[in-house]
């Protein structure tokens, strides 16, 4: 027959295991209940505080950029204390108990903090809280250290350290999953915003990329590198019998370039109306853009062509040259060029050219010849010129050039916006 005392000895550890498993199940169900990182951390720490009958608990998150630990969650009696911790206290790696745990990635149980030299007294001094004992556990995910969880003044002492360690690992994975989730939500939000921005930006460009007036046909292709871009083009009729063709490239890329591009198109349309001189329009635009933020500037070409006789006047502001295709072959037009718009006060020169029936004039942005291949080599202006020379009689030349660039840049991310505008005299 088993004595009563032996029975107790046998049952006690079993009871503890059952209790530990109950806690494990309970905390696990909290961990899987939410993907909201703040809610997750607060719920789990509240539970840990309750289970261990602790006075307070906190989570310090590791900031990779600063290599410091920052209070993210602090649950104690006073809300003002937790706000103070979040706002004012950061710990270096190795500093205090949390810093030691982060550095050594080991659980630490301290029964009496007064006897431990690693304890950082400043936090208690600042908050007025008295830390007597604590448990500090590192939170380590697949991407490495996430932070440190601390339970302050736990009253319960018969906890199972092994279960605590399993729970900490489980908790770290859950935090990491919540971080992934919030990052993917953020990525999706940005993607949606960029798609809207891209649609809006396209609405600033002419609705139809083909413009025809008399013998003149203008055709444009614009491909932004990253949803939105800083390249622009426009067709206007500034005065009767004339067509104005504008191409430009805003410095930089992405949303800032796109916003600036939208402003420039509006300014250009407003200024160009009624003016039969490209240099005058460029001069006025230069003044308007001189207050550009962060040194932003625009390289541009503005051409005004007479619909009746093909006589054209061109002003260039730091933009890559035009390429003329006529019966004699292809040639890069040598022109008097000014600096990009928005940098210095200057006058822009006018260049005259006569376009005859059958002539084609190609304008492009530098994204065309700065396209990179998989080895990072740029295609170069001369290679584009050569390609145009070989394909000069092809009807859809601009599309051919884009195809050629795509082939060259296969399996690489597009480095810059690409715009080609072609003027054709029938």
């Amino acid at each position, binding site marked *: 027959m088993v004595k009563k005392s032996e029975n107790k000895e046998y049952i006690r550890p079993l009871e503890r295991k059952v209790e530990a498993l109950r806690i494990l199940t309970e905390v696990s169900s909290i961990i899987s209940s939410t993907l909201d990182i703040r809610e997750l951390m607060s719920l789990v720490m509240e539970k840990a505080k309750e289970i261990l009958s602790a006075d307070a608990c906190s989570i310090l998150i590791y900031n990779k950029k600063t290599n410091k630990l920052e209070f993210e969650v602090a649950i104690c009696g006073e809300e003002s204390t937790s706000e103070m911790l979040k706002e004012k206290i950061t710990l270096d790696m190795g500093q205090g108990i949390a810093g030691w745990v982060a550095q050594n990635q080991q659980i630490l149980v301290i029964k009496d903090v007064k006897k431990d030299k690693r304890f950082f007294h400043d936090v208690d001094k600042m908050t007025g809280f008295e830390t007597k004992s604590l448990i500090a556990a590192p939170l380590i995910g697949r991407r490495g250290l996430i932070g440190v969880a601390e339970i302050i003044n736990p009253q319960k002492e018969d906890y199972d350290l092994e279960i605590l360690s399993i729970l900490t690992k489980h908790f770290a994975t859950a935090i990491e999953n919540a971080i992934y989730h919030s990052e993917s939500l953020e990525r999706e939000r940005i993607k949606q915003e960029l798609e809207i921005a891209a649609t809006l930006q396209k609405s600033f460009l002419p609705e139809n990329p083909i413009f025809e007036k008399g013998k003149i046909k203008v055709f444009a292709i614009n491909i932004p590198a990253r949803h939105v871009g800083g390249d622009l083009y426009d067709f206007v009729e500034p005065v009767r019998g004339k067509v104005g063709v504008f191409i430009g490239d805003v410095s930089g890329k992405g949303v800032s370039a796109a916003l600036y591009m939208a402003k420039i198109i509006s300014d250009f349309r407003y200024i160009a109306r009624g003016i039969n001189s490209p240099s005058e329009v460029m001069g006025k635009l230069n003044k308007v853009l001189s207050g550009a933020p962060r*040194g932003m500037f625009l390289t541009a070409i503005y051409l005004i062509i007479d619909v009746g006789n093909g006589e054209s006047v061109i002003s260039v502001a730091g933009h*890559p040259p035009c390429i003329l295709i006529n019966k004699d072959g292809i040639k890069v037009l040598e022109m008097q060029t000014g600096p990009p718009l928005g940098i210095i006060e200057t006058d822009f020169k006018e260049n005259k050219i006569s376009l005859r029936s059958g002539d084609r004039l190609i304008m492009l942005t530098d994204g065309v010849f700065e396209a990179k291949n998989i080895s990072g080599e740029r295609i170069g202006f001369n290679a584009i010129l050569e390609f145009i020379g070989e394909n000069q009689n092809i009807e859809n030349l601009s599309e051919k050039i884009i195809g050629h660039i795509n082939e060259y840049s296969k399996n690489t991310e597009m480095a810059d916006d690409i715009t080609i505008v072609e003027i054709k005299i029938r």
Partner: protein
Amino acid sequence: MKTEITDFKGNKRIKITGDIDMHTSPELREVLLSIIKKSKNQCVCVDFTDVTYIDSSGIATFVEGLKAIRASGSRLFFYGLPESIMEIFRFSRLDRVFEIFRTFEDAFGI
């Protein structure tokens, strides 16, 4: 990209190594503007010898620097531009905007 700042007879010399593009130009902007902010009737000269590439966001950073330096009475100039970089400046007529010298000695007339 790396930047190294040295003093030369009360003037500042910034040596840049690597690509100046949209990823690195924010760091260059911080360095350049903080030097310009502190400068008074000084020369801020940029050594381009080991610059491998510059894109329009890099050029915009220097344009911002140029606009800022005019107000302080100081001068911003470049030297040691490799041919490929010089071509970018010539191509866009920026050689008329910035003061560009062949060597450091040329810039200071020494």
